[in-house]
């Protein structure tokens, strides 16, 4: 859906992005991960032409992004940055309505969309629509930032370290919310982060960048099982790769038929969490249940461990 063809960016003598080619699939979350200075933010900003490539091109649904003026392109792409960048002099509703207004939507449609988004992001419209950004907490501001990016129903959403400024507890919730939103709206999301945990948690596919190059672009499990570069291994972490692999599989997917007397484990929980629960309780097996309580099977320590290696 998004094709990056040999994208490069040079500033004078230094090359910040070096011949990057990626194919990003529709209706997925692609995470670009790397240390600071790896060029990941620059790469992201070349997709919506906030930075113009020195060479190479970007195709979105087959169309070259240079075929139209940059500011028109960006109205069809959602963009979320770490500082959220909400307009301090406009209310929450006005902030969210910015791009729909630019696109000329009717007032009724805009109002309906604003209310819908506020509800999706668990912000009471009656209370928050008329508030100014500085009256909201950091977590709420971040949610409004994402809502604003999604207001015009873009097919693509670009996010640059969107959860970096949140404290760890809120960050986990925000990440989960993002997964839910992607499922609900079917948006193609490209997200940049330096946090490998976040990449593994969110990404359908992960691209590892270093010094302007993409070292490996694959499903997260493959980064662990078949890393193509020592840097990838360093980033994913050698010491706990088994546990990382376990974190990619849900208890429901790995459940064996049968039941158990042991502790209950949520079907949506990862095998890593399930293992932790079993070790803590000292039991041999656990029963897997759904959120509403229906039994899904059982898990033994041995069964879990079997998933922990390639």
């Amino acid at each position, binding site marked *: 859906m998004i094709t990056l063809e040999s994208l490069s960016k040079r500033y004078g003598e230094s090359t910040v992005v070096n011949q990057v080619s990626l194919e990003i699939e529709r209706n997925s979350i692609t995470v670009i991960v790397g240390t600071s200075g790896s060029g990941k933010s620059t790469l992201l900003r070349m997709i919506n032409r906030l930075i113009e490539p020195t060479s190479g091109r970007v195709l979105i649904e087959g169309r070259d992004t240079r075929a139209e003026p940059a500011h028109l392109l960006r109205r069809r792409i959602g963009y979320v940055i770490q*500082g959220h*960048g909400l*307009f*301090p*002099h406009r209310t929450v509703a006005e902030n969210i309505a910015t791009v729909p207004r*630019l696109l000329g939507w009717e007032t009724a449609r805009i109002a309906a969309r604003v209310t819908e988004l506020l509800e999706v992001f668990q912000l009471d419209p009656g209370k928050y629509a008329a508030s100014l950004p*500085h009256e909201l907490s950091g977590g709420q501001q971040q949610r409004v930032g994402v809502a604003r990016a999604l207001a015009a129903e873009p097919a693509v959403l670009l996010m640059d370290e969107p959860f970096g400024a949140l404290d760890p507890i809120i960050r986990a919730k925000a990440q989960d919310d993002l997964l839910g939103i992607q499922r609900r709206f079917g948006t193609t999301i490209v997200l940049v982060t330096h946090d490998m945990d976040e990449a593994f948690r969110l990404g359908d596919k992960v691209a590892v960048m270093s010094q302007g190059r993409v070292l490996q672009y694959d499903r997260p499990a493959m980064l662990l099982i078949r890393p193509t570069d020592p840097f990838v291994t360093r980033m994913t972490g050698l010491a706990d790769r088994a546990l990382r692999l376990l974190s990619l599989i849900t208890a429901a997917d790995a459940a064996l038929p049968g039941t158990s007397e042991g502790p209950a484990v949520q079907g949506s929980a990862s095998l890593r969490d399930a293992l932790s629960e079993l070790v803590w309780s000292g039991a041999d097996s656990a029963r897997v249940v759904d959120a509403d309580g229906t039994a899904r099977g059982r898990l033994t320590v041995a069964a879990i461990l079997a998933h922990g290696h390639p």
Partner: protein
Amino acid sequence: MPRPATVLRVAALALLIAFLVTPQSFAPLFAPLTQYGAPPIYDQGNLLTLALAQLGTVCVAAAASTVVAVGLGVLVTRQRGAQFLPLSRTLVNIGQTFPPVAVLAVAVPLVGFGERPTLIALFAYGLLPIFENTLVGLRTCPPAVMEAASGMGLSARQRLFAVELPLAMPLILEGVRLSLVINVGTATIGSTVAAKGLGEVIIAGLLSSNTAFILQGGLLTGLMAILLYDGLSMLERRLLRTLTLD
């Protein structure tokens, strides 16, 4: 129980209006200051008309300065005008050392007496505070907000009018306020070149050694300047509250 500042403000405004509308009622206050039976209240012109004329000159000049200064400020902070930025800041620095009286004095032989040299002097001297503040206001826009605005697809013009200028507005208004207050003072000197204003009263007093006239002119101008300064401060504070930047 209203705050003391508000009481003072309202009292000052009431005093000013009362004096301008019914000056003769204050005659007994000023009588002791005159000698040889000179008139205690300025009688060579209507005080209210003079005050309004001075206010008018000041406001016209301020409006012109604002338009030009903000325009220049915007131009110089765009990419195309960036090469003019260092020079413009030096000129602002230099310009602030020019005494307004000198500008007035040099303008007279060029455009004659009356309102015109005063307007020129007020316009020129009023440019600087507004320009400097526009510069600071536009350049301290939070970068995250600017990036988000670009990223969302606002064109450069839309960014300027919807984001940058509104956010810079408190500072620009501060510059306009400074400019206005300085101008009220300079406009008084304009009376030495026959511009209509309260300076006339002071100068008449100086020429005829009538202390009452001098005091009237001085106090009226002072009151006007203080009330203007104060009123605009309140406006600024209101604006700042809505625009608290995070």
